[in-house]
């Protein structure tokens, strides 16, 4: 059942126990997350999937210390999320590329390095390496608004990887792109993951994307946001786009879909 080698499961990167988050609003409390239990081991690729309002983005933001939980415990690399953020433990890729238009692509990728105080030579070297990693070499001097949406998102991935964090948090990074570009970037992301051996937590609302990318799929459901199912993906780590036609792939996708359907309340 467990497809992961034992040594990877040995070190856990994210430990979440009994976590809850309630927003106080004018209309009373909103239970964004409730009773979340989850462990993510080193080298895993875990996807959060669920309908909008299920708290998948909120959960990712809690891991990144962009939101504070109101109950339960969470540790990232054995530290609190706050300490982990100050230690620059993770790179975060947002829904939008959020590149600065007054900086060239190379300067955008160098932004976290500047903030973290790397030397000029170090910056140049890391920018070069990461631009190569996302296939953007040759576009160093271009400005973001001169690039397509897919290229901008690749640049933002290179920016998140530039300071070489072990953990990559991605919040629907390809949600705004068209199907073809999305397939291409999914394939590239898998290669990149295989090459760098990072732990990836990936938020999506696309079933094929989740099944294609992940080693484990976490299905969330709304009101209150909670985990409905955790599915181990038996597909081999080394996979191409055509694996999506296989029976095994469809079986996993079916289980995810069943989970989404069962967890969804039809009262609205």
């Amino acid at each position, binding site marked *: 059942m467990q497809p992961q080698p034992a040594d990877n499961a040995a070190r856990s990167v994210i430990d979440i126990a009994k976590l809850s988050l309630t927003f106080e609003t004018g209309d009373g409390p909103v239970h964004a997350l409730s009773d979340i239990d989850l462990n993510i081991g080193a080298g895993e690729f875990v996807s959060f999937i669920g309908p909008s309002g299920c708290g998948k983005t909120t959960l990712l933001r809690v891991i*990144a*210390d*962009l939101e504070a939980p109101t109950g339960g415990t969470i540790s990232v690399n054995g530290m609190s999320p706050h300490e982990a*953020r*100050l230690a*620059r433990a*993770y*790179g*975060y890729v*947002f*829904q*939008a590329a*959020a590149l*600065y*238009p*007054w900086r060239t692509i190379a300067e955008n990728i160098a*932004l*976290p390095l*500047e*903030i*973290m105080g790397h030397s000029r030579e170090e910056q140049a070297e890391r920018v070069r390496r990461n631009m190569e990693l996302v296939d953007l070499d040759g576009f160093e001097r271009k*400005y973001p*608004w001169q690039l397509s949406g897919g290229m901008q998102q690749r640049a933002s991935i290179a920016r998140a990887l530039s300071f070489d964090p072990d953990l990559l948090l991605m919040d629907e990074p390809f949600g705004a792109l068209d199907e073809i570009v999305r397939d291409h970037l999914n394939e590239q992301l898998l290669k990149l993951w295989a090459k760098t051996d990072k732990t990836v937590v990936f938020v999506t609302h696309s079933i094929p994307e989740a099944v294609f990318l992940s080693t484990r799929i976490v299905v969330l459901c709304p009101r209150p946001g909670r985990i409905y199912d955790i599915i181990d993906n038996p597909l081999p780590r080394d996979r191409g786009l055509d694996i999506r036609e296989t029976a095994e792939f469809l079986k996993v996708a079916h289980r995810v879909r069943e989970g989404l359907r069962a967890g969804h309340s039809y009262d609205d």
Partner: protein
Amino acid sequence: MSPVTRILSTLALVVALMGSMLTVVETPIMTLGLFALPVLLVGVLLSILVLAPYRTGLLSGARACAALTGVSLLMAAALLGTVSAYPAAASHGFWAYVLVAWAMAWLSVEELSGLTPQSPLGQRLVALAIPLAFGVWLLILWQLAVVGFGVPRVLLPAPSEIWLRLLSSPQILWEDFRQTFLKAVLIGYALGCGSGFLVAILVDRVPFLRRGLLPIGNLVSALPIIGVAPIMVMWFGFDWPSKAAVVVIMTFFPMLVNTVTGLAAADRIQHDLMHTYAANYLQTLLKMRLPMAMPFIFNALKINSTLALIGAIVAEFFGTPIVGMGFRISTEVGRMNVDMVWASIAVAALAGSLFYGLVTLIERVVTFWHPSVRG
């Protein structure tokens, strides 16, 4: 050919033909028709020669534009020469030809704006030629009207008189310019914009200042400059510092408000991004929020470049040493030296436009990335 150009060219052609039967100038001793004024006669004949094929469509495009421009300028020169030889004596025929020349100028600009040159240099020249033609024809019509109708120069001097005044008193105008622009305006502008900017950073950093200082800043901006200027004279003396103080008061608030707005321009994702890098306040300010605020800051710099000049000139109405553009305007009006007043206004307008243009130029360099600049 658009309906407007069709009507205008027909009208110009008819008026040019009919005008030959009218008197052009009436002096107390004689009446002169078109045929007594050979230069004007040549101009009118050429206009008919250009207008007729233009109206029928034989002449169009760049050639029509060149012909219309050339003949309309020739007409303008002939009319200007005639009117200065017989000032305040213009008759019906004269105004008929003014109408013809103006119509041809209109048509030439119409043709010019229809041109689409291939080279970027050509496009830039066309873009420059259109406002230039407007400006030149404004001056020509002004000159013709003032001299032709014999308008008293106390009411409105002719452009030629203002030009002569500019040429004959450069010393006085330069002294005024130095006193008002180089001292009061520039120093007041730098201090006002600079302090507005710094206070905006402070207001942004300290929340209670935002609630306390912004309303007071609003109050200061609402102070009538006419009321403040005499008080500044009492505080800072007659010389330029009191005028610079008025400029500071006028320019402070636009800069404050725009910078505060600009600092809030970054959206949530961009703030989150800096947060994930654990960037400190200064890094976030310098690497994200200030570049983001630049379009707003330049907005204030542009508004202030004109406000500063107005403030300094008006402030000089309330006590000043015997130099300065505001002083010159207020005293020369009293002496009926209206050409000097207009010369000062011309200098102020030119200085103000150049200042504004310079700020705009710097803006284009700094905010090259903004959608409104990168095109």
